[in-house]
């Protein structure tokens, strides 16, 4: 398949304006003739749904939770980047663009990232106008802080709850449209299939999670904003409902899945404590502004941290990366923590953690200043571990956090299926092989508020879209049957092992073999074991209770079934990418200092995978990445 990203010509800074100028418009009175389905109500989905309804389209919004406000964007803590240069410290659109391209280890599209940096400024304006209570200075202007991988302060925040406040802003905008009757809300629905008719996305089939009813919904375009697939690892910082089902089923209907091996392991999370843990908890990257990461210089040192004198501590990030210090990007910080623990320097009962120490900052600025900035995060830590970070250093370890891979989209955010768009974390577009902190919120809102409202008009006005009636359409009937068969097949297994049990085992296999570092032998072995696990799943998964009712074991089993297939795709991609870049670290390809070694001659491309049917090998399509404004360099944070 030839992948056309439809990137406009001309200079980088004019590309988005050029594209907007050539996109056709839908007249004000015609917008109400178009139905648009939005699946997912996180930052990308809620902002898109609200903005499209404001424009006059008929919007149908689906979410898996009881309320759109529960989407996992709500848990983002630290902040959102924007090239406002309010602190006068040398920031600019170009610098945000460059930092993001470099942070992504030169594996993202130049034109997309530049547009993201341009739009970042509008996002802050929009959110402030909605009444998002951003942190302020005494004079009333907005406050900023720093995040990893950059040397300016461009991160806007609302305490440690920035995601919550931005999401509530978008949610409130959406609920306003619901109240006005321009958007219809379908909560507690899980999308089980995409309906493609006449080669175009024309609707979805969803399961009502209360009644079990399989429903068909038709539209002129479908937007997936269903988040990432981090939960494939079982333990991650994602909410427990997060899943790959919507995007994976769209992939099976013909949308290409790009770069599935790119996953972000966040360096500062509360370490794993036991077997019966549903998830891991993130401690915001913003903590690295004031916290210093260290391990004892002596391996296996069991003294309590306060008894270890300064001279016997190794502040390894500051030592290895003097320019960026504790604020190196996430992938670099995570690998360094793993290396320290693998060499026996790790602390805590399992030896799988490192210290994040606030005592210097507390001495410098006073504990009050720390509480003001990080109060809720400190409380969360204390609640989980029983220890106060003001008394003793935090113990942290990397955990799966974000997935850069996702459905392949062109510059208009359209997948390879006409009429199917993909927004936010669910698409692959802007973060390359590693996302910088405070950039996920920026991308989700750029996609939803400022890109899709333009590009969808171009699609709708320029495309022949005959009326579809769900009752008469063969495509809808087949998709419904497919969804019903899937539910019946799961209920028919009647095994003895819970869906959680399979999920946990899958997660462990991936974490060990396709996590922070990967090698060919491990990947091949894991792929084989996952094949076995998948067979066992279909013989032994236990689901009790009917399909026509709330059945959470059935819901989880469906998601795990997709993860078992998806995991193989991740591994295939990780095997194929014989280089190290960003979050994808292949042990075979590293520099003598243990840093990632990219291979630009052979791998400066997006790997977009095409499904060819059950049992058939997947096909790799490559979109070459061309760089005109930046010079490809080895990423250095030293």
């Amino acid at each position, binding site marked *: 398949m030839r992948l056309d990203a439809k990137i406009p010509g001309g200079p980088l800074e004019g590309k988005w304006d050029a594209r907007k100028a050539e996109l056709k418009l839908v007249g004000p009175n015609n917008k109400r003739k178009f139905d648009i389905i939005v699946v997912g109500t996180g930052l990308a989905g809620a*902002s898109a749904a609200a903005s499209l309804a*404001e424009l006059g389209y008929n919007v149908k919004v689906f979410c898996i*939770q*009881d*309320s*759109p406000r*529960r989407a*996992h964007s*709500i*848990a983002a803590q630290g902040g959102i980047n924007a090239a*406002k240069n*309010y602190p006068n410290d040398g920031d600019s659109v170009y610098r945000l663009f460059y930092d993001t391209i470099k942070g992504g280890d030169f594996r993202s599209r130049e034109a997309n990232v530049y547009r993201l940096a341009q739009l970042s400024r*509008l996002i802050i*304006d*929009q*959110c*402030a*106008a*909605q*009444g998002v*209570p951003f*942190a*302020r200075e*005494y004079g*009333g*202007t*907005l406050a900023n802080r720093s995040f990893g991988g950059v040397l300016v302060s461009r991160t806007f925040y*609302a*305490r440690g709850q920035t995601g*919550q406040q931005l999401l509530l802003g978008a*949610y*409130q*905008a959406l*609920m*306003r449209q619901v*109240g006005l009757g321009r958007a219809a809300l379908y909560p507690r629905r899980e999308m089980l299939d995409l309906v493609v008719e006449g080669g175009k996305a024309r609707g979805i089939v969803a399961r009502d999670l*209360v009644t079990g009813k399989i429903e068909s919904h038709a539209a002129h375009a479908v937007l997936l904003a269903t988040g990432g697939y981090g939960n494939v690892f079982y333990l991650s910082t994602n*909410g*427990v*409902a997060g899943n790959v089902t919507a995007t994976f089923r769209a992939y099976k209907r013909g949308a290409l899945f790009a770069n599935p091996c790119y996953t972000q392991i966040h360096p500062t999370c509360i370490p794993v*404590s*036991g077997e*019966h843990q*549903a*998830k891991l*908890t993130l401690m915001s990257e913003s903590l690295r502004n004031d916290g210093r990461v260290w391990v004892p210089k002596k391996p296996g040192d069991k003294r309590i941290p306060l008894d270890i004198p300064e001279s016997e501590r190794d502040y390894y990030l500051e030592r290895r990366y003097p320019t960026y210090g504790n604020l190196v990007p996430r992938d670099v910080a995570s690998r360094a923590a793993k290396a320290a623990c693998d060499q026996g320097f790790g602390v805590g009962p399992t030896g799988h953690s490192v210290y994040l120490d606030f005592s210097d900052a507390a001495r410098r600025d006073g504990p009050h200043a720390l509480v003001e900035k990080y109060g809720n995060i400190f*409380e*969360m830590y204390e*609640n*989980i571990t*029983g220890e106060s970070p003001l008394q003793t250093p935090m113990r942290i370890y990397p955990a799966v956090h974000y997935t850069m891979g996702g459905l392949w989209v062109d510059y208009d955010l359209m997948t390879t299926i006409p009429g199917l768009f993909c927004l936010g974390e669910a698409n692959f577009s802007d973060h390359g092989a590693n996302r910088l902190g405070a950039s996920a919120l920026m991308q989700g809102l750029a996609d939803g*508020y400022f890109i899709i409202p333009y590009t969808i008009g171009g699609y709708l006005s320029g495309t022949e879209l005959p009326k579809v009636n769900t009752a008469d359409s063969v495509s809808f009937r087949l998709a419904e049957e497919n969804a019903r068969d899937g539910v019946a097949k799961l209920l028919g297994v009647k095994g*003895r092992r819970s869906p959680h*049990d399979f999920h946990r085992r899958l997660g462990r296999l991936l974490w060990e073999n396709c996590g922070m570092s990967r090698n060919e032998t491990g990947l091949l072995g894991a792929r084989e074991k996952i094949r076995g696990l998948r067979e066992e799943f279909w013989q032994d998964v*236990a*689901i*009790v209770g009917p399909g026509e*009712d*709330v059945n959470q*074991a059935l819901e989880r089993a469906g998601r795990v079934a997709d993860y078992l297939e998806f995991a193989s795709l991740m591994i295939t991609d990780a095997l194929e990418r014989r280089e190290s870049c960003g979050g994808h670290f292949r042990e075979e390809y590293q520099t003598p200092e243990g840093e990632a070694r990219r291979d630009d001659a052979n791998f400066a491309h997006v790997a977009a995978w095409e499904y060819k049917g059950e049992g058939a090998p997947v096909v790799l399509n490559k979109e070459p990445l061309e760089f005109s404004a930046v010079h490809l360099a080895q990423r250095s944070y030293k």
Partner: protein
Amino acid sequence: MNYTLRVWRQKNSLDKGRFVDYEVGGVAPEMSILDTLDLLNERLLQKGEEPVAFESDCREGICGACGLFVNGYPHGPQKGTTTCEVRMRLFADGATIVIEPFRAKAFPVVKDLVVDRSSLDRVIAAGGFVSVNTGNAQDANSILVGKDRAAKAMDAAACIGCGACVAACPNAAAMLFAGAKVTQLALLAQGNPERERRALAMRERLDLEGFGNCSNEYECEAACPKKISVSHIARLNWEYLRAAALSEPEKVEVGPG
């Protein structure tokens, strides 16, 4: 550690429901009460029994999805935490822990511990927003908001919409929920143009949804996982009175027929 979980089981909104006791052994102190329910459910599945339905998502106290009545308190006896943050170290080994859904007229039970809180969404849809379309915004720094005022707005905005305030209130009032949103937007210049409209519309919606009224019990503040102050209810009442006094009576257009 071993516990007896006395769990409310209810097939659907029509079923009367009942308590069922479950023994759960092998619980670690750092596990949350939801991890313990997960463990119970895994064992129920292995025995061929239907698991207990309950809601959760983020499991770190911010999404507001979880909400259980634990030993007579919404989100359990520990202050300032959501259900998912309640750790088992809080309960003595061998204890019986009573787990029920949030109970309120406006929160009908869906199944077991799952309730329908969409009434809260409708209260927000009535007026809990700033009417600004995408693309209309001026530079963010052109609207100045003092640091202290922004902090107060943030205190109110911290609400996670879990409904614990409603479950705790003897009148099942959602005044703290609505008051927090009204306060946040009233404190900010951005929310000012539709301040009266918002207070009136949200107050009216509370009644329509079947929420009760405030009678100063302060149970909502005690139960709120984000420690939102009852002073926001006073502000809601003030905003409502002010709006009622200031607003022109609506002119009702009577059409033909």
